[in-house]
């Protein structure tokens, strides 16, 4: 089971974090800092795996972004690389050749995508098509839910408020 996933830039800026185990905020920050420093310091010719505490860190760089996952000691690290790759492919399909800026400005979309691929740290769907379909349907649902309000606003009315 995956413990957490971090996306960060070559400059060490965190772009996405998903924790499947509960930790205090302080510890999360400490772990994030530690891993970002360690991974950025590694040379390109080194392998993508790190032994870290009693876990394994699997990371891979795509352009300016590092994708870093922490998995348990008996997890398959080669397959974890495939999970990362799958996520990148999905983002790429969704945004149309994704870049770091897409993920910065649409971080919530990147989270939605991740939540359609993984749940509780495990892969839930192995078909790219199904994931993208589910995201597209939800985006549509979102647009629909916003539309009436948009019309009301155009008419110069306030949306009904509960209080």
């Amino acid at each position, binding site marked *: 089971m995956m413990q957490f996933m971090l996306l960060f830039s070559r400059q060490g800026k965190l772009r996405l974090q998903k924790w499947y185990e509960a930790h205090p905020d302080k510890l999360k920050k400490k772990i994030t800092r530690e891993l970002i420093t360690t991974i950025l310091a590694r040379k390109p010719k080194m*392998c993508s795996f790190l032994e870290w505490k009693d876990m394994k860190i699997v990371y891979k760089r795509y352009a300016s972004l590092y994708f870093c996952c922490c998995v348990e000691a008996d997890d398959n690290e080669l397959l974890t690389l495939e*999970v990362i790759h799958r996520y990148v492919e999905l983002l790429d399909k969704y945004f149309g050749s994704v870049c770091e800026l897409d993920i910065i400005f649409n971080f919530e979309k990147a989270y939605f995508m991740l939540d359609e691929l993984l749940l509780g740290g495990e892969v839930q769907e192995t078909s790219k098509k199904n994931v993208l379909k589910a995201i597209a349907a939800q985006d549509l649902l979102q647009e*629909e839910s916003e539309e009436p309000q948009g019309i009301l606003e155009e008419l110069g009315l306030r949306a009904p408020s509960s209080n």
Partner: protein
Amino acid sequence: MPTPKRLRDVIREIRSARTAADERAVVQKECAQIRDTFREEDNTYRCRNVAKLLYIHMLGYPAHFGQLECLKLIASPRFTDKRIGYLGAMLLLDERQDVHLLITNSLKNDLNHQTQYVVSLALCTLGAICSTEMSRDLAGEVEKLLKSSNAYIKKKAALSAVCIILKVPDLMEMYIPASRALLNEKNHGVLLTAVCLLTCMCEKSPDTLSHFRKLVPQLVRILKNLIMAGYSPEHDVSGVSDPFLQVKILRLLRILGKNDANASEAMNDILAQVATNTETSKNVGNSILYETCLTIMEIHSESGLRVLAVNILGRFLLNNDKNIRYVALNTLLRVVHADYNAVQRHRSTIVDCLKDPDVSIKKRAMELCFALINTNNIRGMTKELIFFLEKCDPDFKADCASNLVMAAEKHSPNKRWHVDTVMKVLTTSGNYCRDDVVASLIQLIQEAHALHAYAVQQLYKALLQDVSQQPLVQVACWCLGEYGDALMSQAIEEEEPLNVTEDEVLEVLERVLIDNNSSVLSKEYALTATVKLSTRFKHSVPMIRKLISIHGASTNVELQQRSVEYGALFRDQDPIRAGLLEPMPIPDKPPTQDTKQNGQAMTNGNGDLDDDIPSDVDDFGSSRTSKPAKTAPPAASESQNILDLLGGDSPVAPPLESTKPAGSNDILDLLGGIDLSADPGIKHCVAQPPSLLGDDFNTMHNAAAIPSLTAFDRAGVKVEFIFNRVSPNNVNVTVRSSNSNSSTFNDFVFQAAVPKTFQVQLDSPSSSVLPANNAGFVTQVVHIANPQKQPIRMRIRLTYTGEGGVSVAEQAEVNNFPPATWQ
């Protein structure tokens, strides 16, 4: 109130901040506005504001004030609100905050929502937060969804169920029937998550595991369909059919086949098929092969299959992808003991991995190489590893050197080779090499009579070139002291005669004595070597006396003491010098036997010099003890003083203790009378001390065949280890703590930690109160399992409430376990 800024604009604004201070200012201003809007209870922009807050949270700023807003969003009927609300809940809430319980009700409602995407959001959030209370409250809803007709919901429900079971294993029961049914699905998402759920249940409960063994044929069929079915674009990953599902099934098969011959038998064929038919050109194929190898190794598989698996891993070692090489080494390391010969066949590939640019690969390769050394390949392997030792990172050197010495000890073809190898290791690893290498080389040379002259000549040559490598200096000094005469007299075959003079030898020793870079320990070795040479060299006594007096005024008490006492051997005590400085006796192999005998000789007291001689000669041999005191002229009185000196806060003890654990043993020995024959090189010379040192300790010497040791002795708190080797791989240590202070210490807790190669288990202590004035003990049994028979290392930690209610925490490392506890 102005319309809140759009998320996009806020992100842009924050990103345009030039300095960290600027960014902080922008964020603070925005947060203030967000708070204001939250206070207004505005529903229109809540979603936008929470989204902004989530971005700010990712930058590391506090965002807890958004938690309740997330709850409000979740309760909203709008999908956009729910989507952001649940996202916020997953990022800002977890089981440690009580607020999370407030969403349980919304989750319950949404799990029954008619829109599948709302149900999906709820399931996903349940999987992310999943506290114990939440699991209990919602387990039933999840079970219902597991039986839904909608594959999209089913797969998510299965993984939520995994989270629930991990949190509350008691709830497993209710999912068993539904999860079996899931395996009949065609949808890969459902199959994958069903296998996940089954795996989780099998891992958590042995009963469920045996219940699900009957699923093996079905799983085998699914796997077979996967690899036999033609190309399906939806699940294809570079020519491999759904690797995610394949790997999950292989993993479940591993759990089901472990320790069960029938289940293993049922999966042998499919494993062979996967192992031979999987495409190996890409990472994805290799990830499946890797999982297959792990499964083959762990179940009762046929021997042919095991060889096939090892060969796959061997092939991995030749792969261009460093990740695959790393995984292969890691796995081979795990299976090397079970499939020794199969792994041995890939030795040369493994040796090549020592040259890999990647440190993690190098490290694994080194460990594997040591595991593969045997009597047949020791020469070649040692050559490779010494080459590696020369080039490798400093971090590896100590381990590599110690392991090489151990391997040579176990498998060396002959003495000469053995001595050469250890000497080579010593010179190659330089100052990185550990003390154990020094001790074992000295003992080795001592035992090899025929090689004394050879060894001393080689060491002398090495010392001429370099006096900065302390371990080398120590061994060389010791040998020069013992066999210095052989340097001139005996010609060695195949070697050119050295033609050295006594003065030249003494000059080298002088260099060691005055070199600023020499450690105190090295200087002690050199000093003892010098005095020993006074009986071996005929013409150089004046020079020797001069050298010995160099440290007569040293600020280091130990050096100064040696200097003064050795000096006395040339004046009043000259007649006994020759007898005292005779060659060292050969040490006995088992370290424990002769200590008692020596101890008895010693108990006659200090005044009788004749009785003291045998044990004092031993002291010179070890060059580490502080006992030369007894050879000094007014033996009784002076040694008494020195004991006093050491008994108090001796300036010698702390530095020795911190830098050279082995060196401090003997000091403790002298004080505490505890036999600490930890060091193989000096084990013979540990003498039982005179009775004046206290009767308390005689009892414990008899208690165990293995000598006990003082693991800790500071501020009146003393911790002794008493050993009982219960089996070759297990030793029980009775930890006995006492307190010589005048006040009783409460809340005494002893903790121990060991490196990964060992396992440690602590029984509960006899008490947590440490009575004053040594009026009683706290005992606690520590079980150590040492399957690899490594020298035991342990870190201990003591905490107690001392005088005046001050809590004290102390730590220490114990590395001087007697060899009899692990060899």
